[in-house]
Each structure stands twice: as C-alpha cells, then as structure tokens.
C-alpha cells in the first residue's frame, strides 16, 4: 500500500467512527459545559481539580473511580463520551470533542503503558471571563418573536421548541428576563388589539345583515331598485354606476350577494333578453341583429362586470345572454341571414356569425346551411343550359369566392372545407357528362394559340384551379375523351400555344389520376417528336428532291393513342398525291411491315395566292386547298356545286362547310352566286378578283378547329362504348372470382369497381348481353343469381 491510499483509508475511517457520536456528544457537551458554567458561582468559575468534590453530575460520576486513574477515564471517554474536556472551558470545546477524545486517549494510553507514577490533572480557571456575542440578545429575540407570531397566527413554528426554550433560558441566565418579558408583552398586546378590532367589525356586519334579512320588504325593494337601474342602463340610459357599485359591495360584504341579489338579477336579465331577442330577431336585418348580440355580450361580459357586477356572476350572465339572444334563434338566424350574407359576400358578418354560433355550439347547423346553400347555388350554375358557355368560368369564380370565405370567415375550419368539397362534388355531378366536357373545352381554349393575354404564371395558376374542378368530376373518361380530341387538333394543326404549358397540364393530370390516365396522351406527344425526327431524315433523303416544290410534312400517328376519325374521301391533285406516295415509300423503307392511312381531313396547307390587288399567304385546310386549286390559272371561271363535288369527291356536308368558309366567311376568296349565307347544291362559284385584305397572312382554316355536332356526338358515343366494355370486363372479372353471385351483390361490387357513373338499367343490359354470349348464366333454381361459365 502506498502512502496516498493509506491516507485515504485513515481519512475514511475516522469520520465513520466518530460521525455517529459527534452529533449527540456535541449537544451534550455544550449543554454540560453550560450547566457547569451556570452552576458555579459567578466570578469563581472552575477552580477545582477533578478529584475535588463537586455537585455537578460529571463530577459525581468520576468520583466513583477515585483515585482517578487515566485508564479508566480513557475507556469511559470512548464508551459513553463523557466530556473530559470540561476543563477546556466555555464555547471552544464544542469544536471537536470526540476527535479530541480519541487523540487524547491514545496519548494517554501510551503514557499508561509506561506505568509511571500517578499524576494529578489540575484544571484551572480561565483567566478572562467568557463573553456573550455582542448582539446575542437581539438576535435571540428576533427568533423568539418569529415563533410568537407563528403561534398567534396558527402557523407552524419555524424552530424546534427545545431550542427556543434553551434560548429563553440563556437569556434569563444572563439577567435579561425583564427585558424579554416587556418585549413579549408588547407583542401580545398588539395582537389582541388587532383581534379585537376585527371581532367588533364582524359583529357590526353580522348585526346589520340579520336586520336586513329580517326586513324583507326593505331588502326586496333595494334589490328590485338596483335591478331596475340596471335595466334602465340596458335600455340605453346612463345611470349612477358608482352608487350601484357601492350597493353591490354592501351585498358582497354582507355575504348576501349570492343569496339575495344574484338570483333575481339573473331572472330579470333572462326576461329582458328573451323579449329583446324575440323582438329584434324579426325586426332587425340579420347583420344588424348579429352585431347587436355581439354588442350585448360585450356590455354584459366586460362593461357591466367591470362597473359593478361581481365577477363571480360572469359565466352565468354570459351564458344567459348567449342562450336568449343566440341559442333560441339559431334556426331563424341561419334561415333568414345565411343565404343573403353569403350571396353578398359579407365576410365580416359571416365571420361574426361563425364566432357567435360557435359560442352556442351551433356550428354543425351552420355547416349544414353552408352545404345546402353551396349545392343550391352551384347546382344552378351547372344545370342552367343557357349558361353552358360560361359555366366553367362561373364555377371557377364561385370556387374562389367560397374558398376565401372558408379561409377568412370560417377560420380555415377543416370541417367546413370538407363540406365545401362534398357540396362541389355533388352539384358538379348533378348534371352528367356536360361539366366534364365543358372543363375539357375550357382548358383547350386556354392552351390554344391566340390566347396570349395570360402570362405563363397566370396560365399555370388557372390550370391549377381548373384541375380542382376536374378533381370533383366522377366521369373523368368524358373529360379525357374531349381533352384528347382537342389536344390532337392542337398538335396536328399546330395550334398549341406552348408545348411547356401542354406538358405541365399533362403532368398535373398524371399526378391527379395516375400514369394510366395519361399514358395515351403522352404517346401523342411522343408521336409528334418521332415525326419531327423522321421528317428531318426525310428531307435529307434523295427522294425528297422530287417533291421539293410541294413540301410535305407528315405526322405519323400510332393508332391506339389518337382519337379515331371516320375515313374521308377526297381526290387529291396529282402532284399532292405524288408527294404522299413519295413519303409513303420512304416510310416503308424505314419501317418494315407497316401501313399508312392518310388522315386528309386534318391536313392543312400554306398557300400563296396572287390576286389582282395583291399577293396573300393563306392558311387553309387541305379541303379548302383542293377546292381553291380548281380555280387556278383561270382554267374555269365558274364552277357549279355539283362540278366541284365531282372533281374533288368530298362528301356533301364537308364540301358545303368548306365552300361556306371560302365564300361566306370573313375572307371571301370565292364569290357565290347567288350570294347568301348558306350553300346550296344549286349554287355556283367563281373566284373573287376584287379580293382585298389588310393583312398579308390570312387564316381561313378555323373551321377545322371548330367542333361539329357530329364530332361531339361521336366523342360522346365513343366514351359510352368504352364504358360498356369496361362494364363487361368488370362483370366478367367479378364473376370469375365469385363463380356464383346474386344480382344485387353483383351490382354493388360493380358500383365499387367502376370509376364512372352508371345506371342500373344499363348494367342489366350488359348482363343480358354477357348471358347471350355465354359468359354466364342464370342459376336454374334461383333466377336472381348468376353463375360464371368458364
């Protein structure tokens, strides 16, 4: 073991051995020293040796072992901590009695072993008389005073009673008893005085209170008077509120407020507001009424409470006003107020209504009114066929208005936002297919070139908003069909305003409906890109030289991606037909095993036309071009309708549309004879040699972009056709897993699976058709169930 660890052992050992003893021996030692001190006559102090006779208990004990031997003493000091250090005097020995003992005894026992002759231990008096600390008396009194106060106030005494007793004793021993008594007396006197005062005041109040309780008529008069005054104030007059305040203070001081005043006060309040509410809810305009109620709540809850009513009545008072002015009239308020407020976009009042109704827990009712109102107003927008052309704009504006109402006045309450969504979803789908179609057309009109008014950001945010409407629509297939057809026209006729905007719309739909929804649309863009590469290849190909005069640009389309068009007959001029043939051969050489089918109805041309009054560049459809070419070089001055029909082979409807656009539109390149708006088969046409126009470049091919009635019906029918297939597929899928299923179960499962609205009667027809085609059969014993036929 090295030195340090030995030291540590010693250290730890000593305190453990002595710590237990220290506490007790400490107090004991100090007590005994004091005992010894006081028991000896003043001025004499300790002058005895240990062997001398003495009355102190310590001395008595030591006496037993006379002659006083050191061995005995050391043993004893170990065993019962007898304070041998009495000799050391007054305060000082308190420091380390046991330690001192231990070292002493060791020393002494060492001496003992030498067996020297017994010596006498002599204890001498202190030379100087021990002193009390200078402000001992004041400090001790402070402690005692605290204790006295604690006792008077029935609190816990901060120090132990023993210490306090000792403190007193010490003071008395030092001849301070007189002063201590005087001080204590003063203290008690003060206390008694205060107590007495309180007692007499309480008594006075008690007497006053009992008298007042006895004098019921007087008391009732006072209370009624006070309430009358309050009612006067409620009616709008000014009153002496400080008088009222002191009166109510008296009630409170007498503890009569709750028993005598509050009850009648609240009753009168209720009566007052009941009659006021019933009167005003009918006579006032709802905005005024709500403002009035709000004002009343403020008056009662803040002003009156601050002025004279005790705050403990506030919750009851407020509840009363709420109940009488709002809760009783919730239905009237909503019935009368909600619709006009919403219509006039009175956000402040609606917010107030929301706040007030939430106080009486009537928000659910408000929400119901909100929902019904949206459904009614929105339904009116959607179902009004005369306003179809502006339906989407109206819906967008309406959505924006309601959005801001939900945000500003309904505090972004998610339940209200939810109700709004539900309402929109329900009314948009209250009219089938048409809203979806109109939304698609609206998007088309915004993405088409010539719509340069909006900036990119505006267009983007508009598309986002349209997409929200689109989200509500159940029959998304209708939207897709119309969107696809319009997109095809934009791409093939070069009418798309911005490919970026197109792609952004596409990605929006993709995130909304998943990649399955947009895969075909993406395919369309891909075809356009592939065609661009293909055409730049074609231009470098040697066969291109042959048709340089008549540059052809072909978009090669994958059949499944694009909308289908009915084949249209047309006899092309030989050079045009030739250029098509050249491209076809080029394409075949690149792609083995493919066929090309020309979609001439979507062809369009840039044509240079020389009129007597100037040169013009015309953007025309292929049909228009073919007709115009007939009049080329003045080969023929006049052509009848039938002649044109024969030469071009264009079918009637298409031909009359084409001729109308050339002879009756804004740019009349041809003259019709006789003139008129409509084209008849008896008309004849000649070229307009007086043709003038301010612009050099003229677009006459807008008819191609326009949707014909047939086109519209075809698109719609296409959707319904697709739906039939989907219904068939869903029925077969369900039956294949279930094997047998009752009719109702089948219908339910179908409604779950199908993503578009279907009528049960249509489903029945599909089931019949599947039974005919032997996909399934009716159960022989239960005709309302079906069995799947593998």
């Amino acid at each position: 073991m090295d030195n340090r660890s030995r030291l540590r052992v010693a250290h730890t050992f000593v305190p453990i051995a002595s710590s237990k003893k220290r506490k007790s021996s400490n107090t004991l030692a100090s007590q005994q020293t004091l005992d010894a001190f006081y028991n000896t006559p003043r001025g004499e102090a300790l002058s005895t040796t240990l062997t001398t006779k003495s009355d102190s208990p310590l001395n008595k004990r030591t006496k037993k072992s006379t002659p006083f031997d050191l061995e005995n003493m050391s043993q004893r000091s170990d065993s019962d901590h007898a304070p041998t250090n009495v000799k050391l005097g007054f305060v000082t020995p308190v420091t380390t009695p046991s330690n001192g003992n231990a070292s002493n005894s060791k020393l002494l026992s060492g001496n003992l072993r030498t067996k020297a002759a017994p010596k006498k231990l002599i204890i001498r008096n202190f030379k100087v008389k021990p002193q009390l600390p200078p402000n001992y008396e004041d400090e001790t009194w402070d402690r005692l005073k605290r204790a006295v106060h604690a006792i008077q106030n029935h609190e816990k005494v901060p120090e132990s009673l023993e210490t306090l007793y000792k403190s007193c004793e010490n003071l008395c021993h030092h001849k301070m008893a007189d002063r201590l008594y005087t001080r204590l007396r003063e203290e008690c006197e003060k206390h008694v005085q205060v107590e007495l005062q309180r007692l007499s005041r309480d008594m006075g109040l008690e007497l006053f209170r009992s008298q007042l309780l006895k004098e019921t008529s007087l008391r009732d008069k006072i209370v009624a008077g006070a309430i009358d005054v309050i009612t006067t104030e409620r009616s709008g007059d000014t009153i002496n509120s400080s008088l009222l305040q002191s009166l109510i203070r008296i009630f409170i001081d007498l503890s009569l407020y709750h028993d005598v005043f509050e009850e009648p006060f609240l009753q009168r309040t209720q009566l007052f507001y009941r009659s006021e509410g019933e009167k005003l809810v009918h006579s006032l305009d709802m905005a005024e009424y709500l403002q009035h109620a709000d004002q009343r709540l403020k008056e009662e809850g803040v002003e009156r409470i601050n002025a004279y009513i005790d705050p403990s009545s506030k919750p009851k008072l407020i509840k009363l006003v709420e109940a009488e002015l709002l809760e009783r009239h919730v239905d009237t308020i909503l019935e009368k107020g909600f619709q006009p407020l919403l219509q006039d976009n009175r956000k402040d009042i609606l917010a107030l209504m929301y706040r007030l109704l939430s106080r009486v827990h009537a928000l659910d009712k408000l929400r119901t009114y909100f929902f019904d109102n949206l459904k009614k107003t929105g339904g009116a927008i959607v179902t009004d066929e005369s306003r179809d052309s502006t339906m989407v704009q109206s819906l967008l504006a309406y959505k924006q208005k309601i959005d801001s109402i939900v945000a500003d006045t309904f505090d972004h309450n998610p339940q209200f936002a939810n109700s709004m969504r539900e309402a929109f979803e329900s009314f948009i789908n209250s009219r089938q297919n048409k809203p979806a179609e109109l939304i698609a057309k609206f998007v088309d009109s915004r993405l088409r070139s010539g719509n340069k008014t909006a900036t990119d950001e505006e267009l983007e945010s508009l598309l986002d908003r349209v997409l929200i409407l689109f989200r509500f629509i159940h029959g998304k297939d209708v939207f897709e069909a119309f969107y696809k057809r319009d997109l095809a026209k934009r791409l093939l006729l070069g009418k798309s305003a911005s490919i970026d905007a197109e792609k952004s719309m596409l990605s929006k739909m993709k995130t909304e409906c998943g990649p399955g929804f947009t895969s075909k649309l993406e395919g369309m863009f891909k075809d356009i890109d592939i065609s661009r590469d293909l055409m730049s290849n074609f231009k470098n190909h040697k066969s291109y030289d042959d048709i340089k005069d008549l540059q052809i640009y072909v978009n090669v389309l994958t059949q499944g991606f694009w909308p289908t068009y009915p084949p249209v007959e047309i006899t092309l001029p030989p050079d045009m037909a030739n250029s098509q043939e050249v491209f076809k051969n080029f394409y075949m050489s690149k792609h083995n095993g493919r066929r090309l089918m020309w979609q001439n109805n979507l062809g369009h041309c840039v044509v240079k036309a020389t009129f007597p009054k100037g040169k013009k560049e015309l953007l025309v459809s292929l049909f228009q071009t073919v007709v115009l070419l007939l009049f080329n070089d003045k080969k023929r001055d006049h052509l009848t309708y039938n002649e044109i029909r024969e030469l071009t082979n264009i079918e009637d409807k298409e031909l009359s549309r084409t001729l109308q656009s050339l002879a009756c539109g804004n740019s009349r390149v041809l003259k019709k004879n006789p003139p008129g708006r409509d084209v008849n088969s008896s008309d004849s046409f000649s070229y307009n040699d007086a043709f003038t126009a301010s612009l050099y470049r003229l677009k006459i091919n807008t008819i191609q972009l326009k949707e014909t009635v047939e086109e519209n019906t075809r698109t719609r029918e296409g959707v319904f056709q697709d739906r039939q297939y989907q219904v068939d597929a869903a029925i077969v899928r369900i039956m294949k897993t279930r094997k047998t299923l009752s009719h109702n179960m089948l219908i339910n499962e179908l409604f779950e699976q199908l993503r578009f609205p279907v009528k049960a009667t249509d489903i029945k027809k599909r089931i019949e058709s599947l039974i005919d085609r032997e996909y399934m059969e009716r159960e022989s014993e239960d005709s309302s169930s079906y069995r799947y036929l593998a």
Partner: protein
Amino acid sequence: MKIKVNTWTVPAYWSWDVENEDVCGICQVAYDACCPTCTVPGDGCPLIWGECSHVFHMHCLIKWLNAPNSQEQCPMDRTPWKTAAAHS
C-alpha cells in the same frame, strides 16, 4: 387567281401490315393491340414475321422460343423459326 401550295402538313396513322382483326397465334390478342405484358400498342410492342409467313407479337415469340419445349420452331407449323429478312 394564281394558287401555289408552299407546304402542306398531313397526319397519317400507321398500322401493322396484317389482315384486319387478326390475332397473334400465341396470345390470341389482336396484332393492333399489344402483347399481354405490354400496356400500350405501337412501337413498344412490335410484330415479327417469320419466313414461314406466320406473324406474332415479338415479345410473345421470344418468350416461346426461350421455352425449352419450343425447339426453336414456329409454334404454328413446327418448322425451324427463321425471322423474315424483309417483309413485303
């Protein structure tokens, strides 16, 4: 009046040069549509012609030829499969 066509743009659909409504002998799906593993028809799912004059979805045929019991024969006439160099 003198008219001259400068440029003209016209779309054309392409389709596989096979009999209309005909189906692939392996998957029984129309040639115009795609094989069962693809989702979109067109360039992504081409047809393949054999010297034996039989036509299949390319994906279907490859799957068949990779099967151990195909012995690399045409599934229709069991002659060794040879892809036609050029289809006419």
